[in-house]
């Protein structure tokens, strides 16, 4: 019974993680970004610099970078013209392809990128729960209602002596 409750609890936790994740997925898949004027940093964090540095356009700080420096300037101009974050990003995606995005879109094959870590976590958690169940049924446990903290009362004298000796050593 308790095991079933725990399994359900685990499912709830994983579901909660997906709920947490969903706003970002929604953003990425439909590119329904906030309507208010974006900042350069918000847009350039979503784009990857193509100079080979592997950083985002926002983070590439190579003074003479042939990609991030002009792109940041272009983004400023596009923001000045009132373009939304989604439109600016769509412009660069159209121009350079998917590789210019700093995160995978949440569509098709790319969905695997977003979901696999959580699926793995869920499977791992399930395995732990299963293992616990097996171990617990095979494990000699204290009688129900026994208080492990009061268990010292039932120690034999030799164990008590050993406990006292080890306590003295530690102290």
């Amino acid at each position, binding site marked *: 019974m308790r095991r079933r409750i*725990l399994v359900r609890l685990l499912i709830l936790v994983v579901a909660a*993680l997906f709920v*947490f*994740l969903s706003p*970002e997925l929604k953003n990425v898949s439909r590119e329904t970004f906030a309507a208010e004027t974006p900042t350069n*940093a918000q847009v350039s*964090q*979503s784009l*990857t610099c193509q100079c*080979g*540095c*592997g*950083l*985002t356009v*926002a*983070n*590439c*700080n*190579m*003074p*003479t970078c042939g990609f991030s420096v002009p792109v940041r300037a272009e983004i400023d101009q596009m923001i000045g013209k009132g373009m939304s974050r989604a439109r600016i990003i769509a412009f660069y995606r159209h121009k350079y*392809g*998917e*590789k*210019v*995005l*700093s*995160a*995978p879109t949440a569509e098709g*094959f*790319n969905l*695997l*990128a*977003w979901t*696999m*870590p*959580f699926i*793995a*976590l869920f499977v*791992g*958690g399930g395995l*732990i729960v299963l293992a*616990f169940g*097996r*171990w*617990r049924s*095979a*494990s000699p*446990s*204290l009688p129900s209602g026994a*208080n*492990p*903290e009061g268990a010292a009362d039932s120690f034999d004298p030799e164990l008590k002596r050993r406990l006292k000796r*080890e*306590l003295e*050593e*530690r*102290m």
Partner: protein
Amino acid sequence: MPELGKLALAIALILAVYSIVANIYGVRRDAPDFVVSARHALWSMCAMVTIAVGALWTGLLRSDFSLEYVAAYSSTTLPTIYKITSLWGGQQGSLLFWTWLLSIFTSIAAFQNRRRNPEIAPYALAVMAAVAIFFLGMLNFVTRPFDLLATIPAEGSDLNPLLQNYWMAIHPPSLYTGYVSATVPFAFGAAALITGKLDDAWIRTTRRWAIFSWFFLTLGNMFGARWAYEVLGWGGYWAWDPVENAAFMPWLVMTAYLHSVMIQERKDMLKIWNLSLIGLAFGLTLFGTFITRSGVISSVHSFTQSGLGPYFLTFLIIVTLAYSALLIFRSNQLRSPADFESYLSREAAFLFNNLFLVGIAFAVFWGTIFPVLSEAVRGVKITVGPPFFNRVNGPLALGLVFLMGVGPLIAWRRTTADNLLRSFAAPVILGVSTGVVAAALGLREWYVLTALSLAAFAMGTIIVEFRRGMNARRHLVSEPRVRALVNLVAKNNRRYGGYVIHVGVVVAFVGIIGSSFFRTDVKKSVHPGQSFTIGSFTLRFLGLSQIETPHLESATARVEVLRADGREVTVMEPAKLFYKRAQQPATKVAIRSTPIADLYLVLAGIDDTGETATFEVFLTPLVFWLWAGGLLMVLGTVIVMWPNVRERAAIAAALSASRAGAPAGETAPGGE
């Protein structure tokens, strides 16, 4: 010198091969002389690799450009310290450095085990020698550090300017030390599998090695982050670059291992899991090297890229298959006695902690390789960058911090409801109050509120644990508070050192939250005398000064930092550098660091007239605490590693029990 280096590497390779043959022959035929001879061969191998390293360093210090490596990674004007660090600045040198560390650690392991572990040590040393053979093979046949140039150039190409920084002098050695020392516990784990000696003797023998490896992986990651912060000039310290990820994954797995071995030491459980984790940690160190050197995934760390990828991949596959086969072969003997009572127990907390640590490692691995997967499946190149990693790892990190809070206060075997309430009431109140106060102060992001609450909760449990221990001592031996605290830590260094590490992690976590969510930045072009503001600071550009040395040209800006009331805080001097030999520009940032926030100033550009300077300024709250957390983790590890008489006795007992064939847990106290 080059000839000496070549010869030394060739002899080292022969000695490594001989040591494997002699070790295995010696232990299988019960011929101790061969085992001793193998040990001597390993020490000699170390001496030979040391000679090779000395030869390359000599070439670098003498600017001997007849050596291809020296010509490619050094110059006559390169400062001496960077001539020394050039050893790991390029492909061949860094592999030689790796091999040197491996030979040193193998020698130390051989020395430590000259009179103990007679059954598994020869196999463990053979495994280490096999790893050394791979690297020595590369150095002798594939990527040779002592290759000569047909025409000797008058000047070298210089070390990459990004590597001419003191953090780069210590970041790669720390990381390499962490990577390479993971070989020792891996080799003993493999030896335990080969010999069937599957009690926890191998874990106890290599526990310090595992902590040592973890310690240097921690340092390596921290130093790398600090290097990125100071050198790359974008105001951040972690970009989820594939090579950063490659260093982070073994750290995560090694952290999981250090927790889960406690369950094996205490309850003789999780043998397969622990052996798998140490195998995985070692495999990930090889994977990291493969990523760095193969170029299959584009990275900011392209300093050592080459065509070595296939060799590393092949070696990685061989190691993985061989180790997995051993695990499967021994799986029956690795079955553990079932001894588990409740989910409300420390062993359960440790297992879930393992789940989250390995889960994060998997998420990082998945994100790192996904571009390759995408290209293979869809033929479309994609990028997996910071937004992905932050979003996926964010919730997992919260789970981990929560478990870090639960672990210290929950009992082994089973915790009663009363005990839970008694132990966790204060930390929970602290956590909730922190969240409420943060919300009252105007913080609205739910992630930040949750993260701060959990950090406070975790810190609360550690404080409660220290307080309990102190009170117990004061009660039993009537010590004053401070002495009780000192003795508590000194006599239980492994346990309380571990808690100090936890404090460091929580402090670093708070630093990461603050710096990730509340950073502000401003970019301004100004003339001398003009000012601009960021946060409560006013920055006034005073002027530029130019300096030229044979090695570089620099333009340094002087910027006066003022408070709102006009009081001067400091003068900051960011600079733009131009390295003449490499013909590369670089940035030198100026940082004013306080526990509240870092003011981070970058001289982003100077116009053609030399009058207008463009500055990029970041105000990053709490980033100071990331580094402080790192220092606390270092302190905690030193406490954990501090020699402890009781622990040594436990190791001796475990080893003698292992020799007698009894389960070690029965005779040796497990510690914490």
